[in-house]
């Protein structure tokens, strides 16, 4: 998922909709994020390209809304509710995910296994 600067990024994405769970006075989503343009990309265990500064899912709370919605550990978040997540700081990403007024976040996430799934499905059913 490396990008060439100046060229548009293409990726196969999955749309995931997570309902926020109210816990006390907080709305939680049940996962943790890592990465960002202000972080060190070399320490990201989930990225293929160690210069990728995108936002990755690093942990999923078992039984939380994210797990229920189908989010997996290691996913890279491309968009949150229409907001781009590929070129944001860590704090900006956190803010976009934890807006108090929104009950639902719609994520576009991508993972390596998606590509293989698509290739396989295209291979199985060629030229349909």
């Amino acid at each position: 998922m490396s990008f060439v600067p100046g060229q548009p990024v293409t990726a196969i994405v999955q749309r995931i909709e997570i309902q926020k769970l109210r816990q006390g006075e907080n709305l939680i989503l049940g996962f943790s994020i890592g990465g960002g343009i202000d972080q060190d990309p070399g320490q990201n265990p989930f990225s293929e390209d160690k210069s990728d500064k995108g936002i990755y899912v690093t942990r999923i709370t078992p039984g939380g809304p994210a797990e229920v919605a189908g989010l997996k550990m290691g996913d890279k978040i491309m968009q949150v509710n229409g907001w781009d997540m590929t070129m944001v700081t860590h704090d900006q990403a956190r803010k976009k995910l934890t807006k108090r007024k929104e009950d639902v976040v719609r994520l576009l996430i991508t993972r390596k296994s998606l590509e293989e799934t698509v290739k396989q499905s295209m291979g199985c059913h060629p030229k349909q």
Partner: protein
Amino acid sequence: MDTESTYSGYSHHSGRSRGSHRHGERSRDRHKSRSKDSRSEKSVTINSPPAEPLLGDSSVRGEQVQDDNWGETTTAVTGTSEHSLSQEDIVRITKDLEDSVGLDCRRYVTRTIAVILGLLVFFTPLAFLVLPHILWPEKLKSCGTACEGLFISVAFKLLILLLAVWALFFRPARAGLPRVFVFRILLAVLVFLFVVSYWLFYSVRILDSQDDNYQGIVQYAVSLVDALLFIHYLAVVLLELRQLQPCFSVCVTRSTDGETRHYNLGQLSIQRAALAIIEHYYCDFPIHNPALLSASKSRAAKHLAGLKVYNVDGPGNPAAAGIAQSQSRAMIAAAARRRDTSHNELYYEEAEHERRVRKRRARLVVAVEEAFTHIKRMQEEEPKKAPGDVMDPREAAQAIFPSMARALQKYLRTTKQQHCHSMESIQQHLAFCITNNMTPKAFLESYLTPGPTLQYGKDHWLGRRWTLISEASVTSGLKDGSVFVLKCVDFSLVVTTKKIPYIQMSEEYIDPKSHKFVLRLQSETSV
């Protein structure tokens, strides 16, 4: 040289693109004409503008705002000056003489009482020891070595007591305070009662019954001296030690120019705190210069003088108080509405003054440095010069003084300090600096910044009477929020007190091994 600065002043102004009303209004000194009245169409200005005084810098006169409506305005502002008030000086000196007699009387009385008490205290143990030998020598049992040991101890303790009392009580008085010193009175009464009770006991139990146990009598005398030493210890604690720990923070403000200092004081009575503050005043506050206050006074007078309110209802109105209040409100409203450009004038005036001061200061520094190069210290190894060439410091100072005198005088006039330094004092200071191998900058330091009052000649601070004005009794202690005023002839010091808060400190132990760090380059946030 003055014309030079004036010329540059003009060019400085004309070069600036100000409104046309500025031209023709700026002149050499602060001689202003008030044409702004004509511009304010909404004001209630009725009368003609007053003529401004020409504040010449050749001498410091007592200034008066010459107002056209001189008789009708209620406040005429006059500044105090150091030279022309001979009448006030005479009044002040006579008041000094009168009151100093009263003070001396009181000091005399206190000294007498102190001496009498001291003699009583000193001779009582000796009397206790000597009287049995005089009155009933044959009945007395001879006392052995223990007694003689006690004699030695009595002698040394009395010597120590004598030195201690001399050190604590017989010091030159620093000041005359308005009320008596409460702790000293208490201690004197305590000592007196103590000694009297010992005498009573002695006369009743020993003299009357003619006790023959001499050792007991000696031990009685020793116990008296011990108790007196303990009373002296109490005196040290009450008079000296108690006020050392700072308890209050006092803020002292001079009323004329707002100079403020903060000091820490312990638990003192108001009069003792006032004394401490006055002593600090003489050392810390820059000297009070009445010549610097004239500008703001003239501004204030000018501001009020432009308005005049007429009472159209006639003088015999029963609702006079209400009229007066509404008059003053009308004046304030009119003054607020009037488009006042005095802030503009102040700004440019201050900028101009600062430029002038800096220019004169530069000239002064150069002149002094040049003057100092004309003399040098004669080394011993040099071949002896003719006696006419060798000068002592005073002559050397007189030799180089004329070359810097003019620049120095001009600078002092510009900063309005010329009354603080006489020619004689300047030459003395110059001789002093030459003797001590000081640089020109060190010589100039006392003229460039106004120093504390004590630095100047005695006539500036001698003969100052201070009046303590306080709502609480002056022998009561300082409290949080107590306010009092120390009034002098020219100004007053307003003092406010604040208590230093009680500090509650807790401890927290940090294990030295608990300082561990990780690199925070990949942070993880849970959402």
